């Protein structure tokens, strides 16, 4: 029991690997997204789909590496809150675009 505590404590004490990895990943994903767009070498559909997927990955990196979404005792509720938020957000955006399609 004690050992585990010490280990956990150390994980918080040493070099912030988690944050550095998070930063590198998010910079990389940003640059990939930019490259996909400015290279103009892909179809519009592919470009849009891939940058959206990259954005979702980036959001997950922030949530997990920087925001510690899954660390507290109420992690289930935190995940449900953020998950329901994303569900509603997706419904709002996709639904609105579909409904308003003929005025786009």
């Amino acid at each position, binding site marked *: 029991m004690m050992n585990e505590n010490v280990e956990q*404590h150390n994980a918080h004490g040493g070099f912030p690997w988690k944050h550095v990895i998070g930063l590198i990943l*998010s910079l990389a994903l940003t640059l990939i997204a930019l490259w996909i767009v400015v290279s103009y070498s892909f179809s519009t559909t592919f470009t849009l789909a891939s940058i959206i997927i990259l954005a979702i990955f980036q959001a997950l990196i922030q949530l997990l590496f*920087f925001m510690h979404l899954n660390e507290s005792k109420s992690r289930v509720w935190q995940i449900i809150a953020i998950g329901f938020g994303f569900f509603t*957000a997706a419904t709002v955006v996709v639904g*609105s675009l579909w409904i*308003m399609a003929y005025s786009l």
Partner: protein
Amino acid sequence: MSSVASNQSNKPYEPLEYSTEDGRLRILGFWIFLGAEIVLFSCLFATYLVVHSHTAGGPTSKELYDVKEFMIETFLLLISSFTCGLGTHELRRHNAKGIIIWLIITLLLGLGFIYMEVNEFVKYATEEGATVGRSAFLSGFFVLVGTHGAHVSLGILWMTSIIIQLAKRGVTAVTARKVFIVGLYWHFLDVVWIFIFTAVYLTGMVL
């Protein structure tokens, strides 16, 4: 605070911000609030995307957006999110000085971002005649990006107040919770920016 649980007990390691009932409640409450914020921004995104092509003869997104500008803004925010995360990292080591240093760096990066954004808006308005009242597209653009900018500005004020409290009181269960929550807020604004970067700027270059 009498109810601060100490970490010397046999309980598994628990960060200070979670050590009181009040702290745990507020952190959960803030996560729920962030869920609401996701929906709030999603409505602005939906509106922007619906009116994106409604330029009413005014400037279009392709004409306005400048890669160099929005990339610098993006990097400023991404790095500030990282430095803010290092603040939380120092928080876990109960190092008040470390927290303050990283938060101040975060603030400076945030100010840089706001400076860039204000410049961008002023440039659009003066050089291209692109104001909020020019077309539906521009209304959508300014209000979506502006709402994010207002959030960042508010975050700067808030973080400043917390740095002062931290300097006055050191790392306690209460200040720890405050630092953690303002960190959540800051990272969240980065998440929103990622989507603005993608759905507004990058998409605006394509469509």
